[in-house]
């Protein structure tokens, strides 16, 4: 599987960074908006972004090969490549592939963890096994990512089979957006779950991108 688009600079103006010092971020499409918000916000002109389809979220067995292909495709153009995927259900295979290819990736089991901060998530929420998490992206794309692929639009009676052991929907908010919060609350109602909103901001994502930005200049 190939990336959907060629790398785009973090800002419309390319900046004055030599090509050799540019950084390519290979990311899950579910993080594109947030990564661009961070890199633009900090004027990190030397960071380019290319994304793999966010729907790989529902097919984690395909993530590792997709990332491998993307790194291979851009290897000659960038000395510095950083993979913005956590383990994301690959069972350590993505980490092994990144090690093989000599590229770094963001730590953590999934984006819910690094948005909260991996350490904090591990300390406070690792045993929160009956929570169903949504991020800003997943709230926006709830129907495309969950409702329709799970067949709930056609067979609403399946809801209780899928979600019978879940107790609450936790909306991890990256931004303060009342409309999005209401949409998340509606998602919880549709799934028959209690609702909780946690503001996380960008968590470890911003910290890690800052580190990558500093390393490459």
């Amino acid at each position, binding site marked *: 599987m190939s990336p959907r688009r060629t790398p785009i600079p973090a800002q419309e103006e390319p900046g004055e960074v030599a090509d050799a010092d540019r950084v390519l971020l290979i990311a899950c499409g579910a993080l594109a908006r947030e990564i661009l918000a961070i890199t633009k916000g900090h004027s990190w002109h030397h960071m380019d972004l290319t994304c793999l389809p966010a729907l790989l979220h529902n097919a984690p*067995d395909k993530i590792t090969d997709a990332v491998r292909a993307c790194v291979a495709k851009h290897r000659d153009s960038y000395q510095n490549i950083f993979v913005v995927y956590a383990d994301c*259900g690959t069972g350590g295979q993505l980490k092994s592939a990144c090690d093989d290819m000599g590229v770094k990736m963001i730590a953590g089991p999934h984006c819910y963890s690094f948005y909260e901060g991996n350490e904090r998530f591990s300390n406070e929420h690792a045993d929160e096994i009956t929570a169903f998490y949504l991020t800003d992206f997943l709230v926006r794309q709830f129907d495309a990512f969950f409702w329709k692929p799970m*067949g709930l639009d056609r*067979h609403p009676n399946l809801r209780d*089979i899928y979600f019978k052991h879940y107790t609450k929907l936790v909306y991890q908010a990256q931004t303060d957006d009342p409309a999005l919060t209401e949409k998340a609350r509606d998602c919880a109602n549709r799934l028959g779950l209690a609702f909780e909103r946690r503001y996380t901001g960008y968590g470890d994502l911003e910290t890690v991108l800052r580190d990558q930005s500093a390393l490459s200049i």
Partner: protein
Amino acid sequence: MSEQDDEIILSELDDEELVQQMFDDLYDGLKEEIEEGVNILLGRDWAPYQVLTEALVGGMTIVGKDFRDGILFVPEVLLAANAMKGGMAILKPLLAETGAPRMGKMVIGTVKGDIHDIGKNLVSMMMEGAGFEVVDLGINNPVENYLDAIATEEPDILGMSALLTTTMPYMKVVIDTLIEKGIRDDYVVLVGGAPLNEEFGKAIGADAYCRDAAVAVETAKEYMARKHNLMAAS
């Protein structure tokens, strides 16, 4: 599968037509029709075991193959399973009464920290359909639950399921505990779940990784056959 289905009266079909119609109804996830079909076959003096294997398991085998081939997806498989469950509920007490063949016994559960049970439930149902007695421990099972269950139930097979990469390592905790207690080789250990693979199954010391419910049934049957052969030889 077509609009004409509404006009079909199951009781007017002969046995062969009815079984074929039940395959279609299972494929379409029509629970009430499956329950009706099961009752009609029983009323025609079919043995409960014959209804189970020829009508229900036969139909679910088609569903399983089409799922593996990417023709059907999870929602459709769940609907089919729900329909089969309706038929099984009628047959189960009758199977016990009529002394249906027993292939073996399995204790199965989702591991600690994991609440996902869709795959496990499919395996349980298909194992029962294949003549295994299944003791289902449900979700979020610490090692103690497995130990208690195998001590009480004395199964041939221990099955473990996990959907998360964060919880699948717990399977090794269970297997290592069995080794510590010197009882590992008393059981066939089968593992499954979306993030697992054969390599992982071997690494943790399971007997086999089963990628879906149909494979789990076939693998379980193979191990039972080996066990019987060994017993016969000794």
